[in-house]
């Protein structure tokens, strides 16, 4: 392992280390409380590890079968209701945090995709990914997850049209070759 890799690993695990030290110090100071903390943390770790293998494999499968290049190709072309449905459907598929989607969204707009569809795509990517909804249902209940999903989708559709109608949004243009 080279030095830079070690440094980035250290940085990523630093917050965990800090929390661990706090827990250890606490257990030393007050064993009773320390046990309560460790018990609660351990319980949630087990719950998490029970579902994560399936969740990340599902993410991997979606990533492989619905590649981002495919999304980019279709979403740039389709308009009307088909465009809206496609934006919703494609938003539920990708893996990865929202900031990965910003360059994709920018590329879509430059290729002539409708602003509302791109906003809808970003919103669904952020809030309505399938594996995410399943984990939410497990921890917070099916009715919580589904109700939040339905309300969020409604809000995302409204946002798309509001931004298109009132936003006067101009997206920075850049060379297509830059992608």
């Amino acid at each position: 392992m080279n030095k830079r890799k070690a440094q980035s690993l250290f940085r990523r695990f630093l917050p965990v280390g800090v929390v661990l030290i706090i827990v250890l110090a606490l257990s030393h100071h007050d064993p009773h409380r320390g046990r309560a903390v460790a018990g609660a943390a351990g319980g949630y770790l087990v719950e998490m590890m029970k579902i994560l293998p399936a969740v990340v494999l599902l993410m991997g499968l979606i990533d492989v079968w619905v590649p981002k290049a495919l999304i980019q190709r279709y979403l740039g072309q389709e308009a009307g209701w088909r465009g809206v449905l496609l934006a919703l459907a494609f938003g539920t598929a990708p893996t990865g945090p929202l900031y990965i989607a910003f360059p994709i969204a920018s590329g879509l707009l430059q290729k002539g995709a409708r602003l509302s569809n791109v906003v809808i795509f970003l919103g669904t990517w952020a809030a309505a990914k399938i594996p995410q909804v399943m984990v939410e249902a497990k921890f917070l209940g099916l009715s919580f997850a589904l109700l939040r999903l339905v309300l969020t989708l409604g809000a995302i559709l409204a946002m798309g049209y509001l931004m298109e109608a009132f936003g006067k949004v101009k997206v920075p243009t850049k060379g297509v070759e830059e992608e």
Partner: protein
Amino acid sequence: MTIFIYLLTGGAFFYSLYRDREKSKRALRVGARVFLGMLPSILLVVGLVGLVMGLLPPEVISYYIGPGTGFAGTLVAALAGAVTLIPSIVSFPLAASLVSLGASIGTIAAFITTLTMVGIVTAPIEIKELGLRFTLWRNGLSFLAAILIALTMGVVLI
């Protein structure tokens, strides 16, 4: 729910194997990479859940984000979600532990919704790619939506 997730993923994986062995291998590798990428945040959140559950008395939690706090509690939770940068999947156990300690449904819904949709930390990337106006509008409307969603959920789910 766990069984359902495994059935769905298992079914999808076997179908994928049947269709294309190479792609399925790649899916496994992508999954492993996603898992390793999430690991630091998972451990961090698990540690925080432990500290919250083991140390904070339920009265404190319900004082700040409990059912009695109304709009102010929802606003606090929404702001917390907007500035936090952890994968949403990892945030659900934390949210569940807060609910079990007396946080209201509305505040938790507000936290999760802004966590996923509003990004203060990632705003510079968004501005660079999509411009300032776009970023302000999208995040502003998302924040507003989160509050409305939270208030609705607080009324519907008790």
